[in-house]
């Protein structure tokens, strides 16, 4: 993980001003794809496998997720250092580091029912008022909330739901 952080920091230092947050997010999606397809990660770990094969596979991945040419430089560097297997970890750390450097927060908003557009706008305005970061929002359904909303980023959690009240009630009489 430390190594991945070093590569991610180096990447941000060189390409931080060139790449956009959307492109970094695509990188995060590519990392998720690799974690879901562990076989690909395993192939990257095999040292006997030719680097050109790994390069080709990773470039195809970059094209699939519309990653800019800067990521190919990262692939070349990792292949040169014999650490291609770190690609997914570097992308993961890259997303977090980019958010930290550019004060970006990604809020995952879950609600028990589909939120109306005006409610979404209200919630986004509310959260933007509470934070100093540039916020991005993704929406999802979560029936376990019963009713209400839960907004969570890497560092913040805000919730107004019946589930939260029930959890608080259950905790009330715990020693």
């Amino acid at each position, binding site marked *: 993980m430390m190594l991945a952080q070093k590569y991610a920091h180096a990447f941000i230092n060189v390409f931080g001003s060139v790449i956009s947050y959307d492109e970094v997010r695509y990188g995060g999606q590519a990392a998720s794809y690799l974690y879901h397809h562990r076989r690909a990660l395993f192939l990257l770990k095999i040292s006997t496998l030719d680097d050109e094969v790994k390069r080709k596979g990773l470039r195809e991945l970059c094209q699939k997720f519309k990653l800019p040419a800067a990521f190919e430089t990262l692939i070349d560097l990792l292949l040169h250092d014999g650490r291609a297997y770190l690609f997914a970890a570097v992308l993961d750390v890259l997303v977090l580091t980019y958010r930290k450097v550019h004060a970006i927060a990604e809020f995952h908003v879950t609600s028990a029912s589909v939120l109306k557009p005006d409610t979404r706008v209200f919630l986004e305005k509310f959260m933007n008022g509470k934070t100093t970061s540039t916020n991005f929002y993704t929406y999802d359904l979560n029936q376990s909330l019963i009713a209400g909303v839960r907004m969570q980023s890497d560092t913040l959690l805000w919730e107004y739901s*019946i589930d939260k009240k029930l959890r608080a009630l259950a905790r009330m009489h715990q020693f």
Partner: protein
Amino acid sequence: MADVEFIIHIIFRLVNFTVIMGAGWYAFNKYLYPDLKAQMHAQEHEETALVNWYRKLLQDQDDLDTTLSRERTEQQDLRGKMDRWSNVRHQEHELMMVQEEKRRKVILMRHKKQILHMHEQQLAQEILPHVVDRARKQLHEQFAASVAQESYMSYMVETIKKMDTQ
């Protein structure tokens, strides 16, 4: 003639008397007077010592009387202090006993409250999960309808607005 003899006789008698008296005076001065003088001196010395001793005894008697009187006064003072201390000690002991009794009652009450609270907690711990589960199910059913959801969301938005204005 007879008168001359008589006179001579008288003269001899006088001389004899004088010689005897001189011998007696000499013997007295030689042998008796020094002893008598020494005895008198010793007697005087002894008398002076006795007088001095008597005075000293009188002084000692006075000193003893003074000391005795002072000690008697001190003893009375000490007894007075002892009595006061004993009274204060007794009062303090009684006060302490009263406070101890109060404290014991307070501790007993607190202990009873703690036991009661613990029982309540235990009861709540046993019951609460079931209550929460039941409430969760009922609330799920209650909020299954979209109207309830929208109503809750409206309530949430209003609450947030109120919080923001405050």
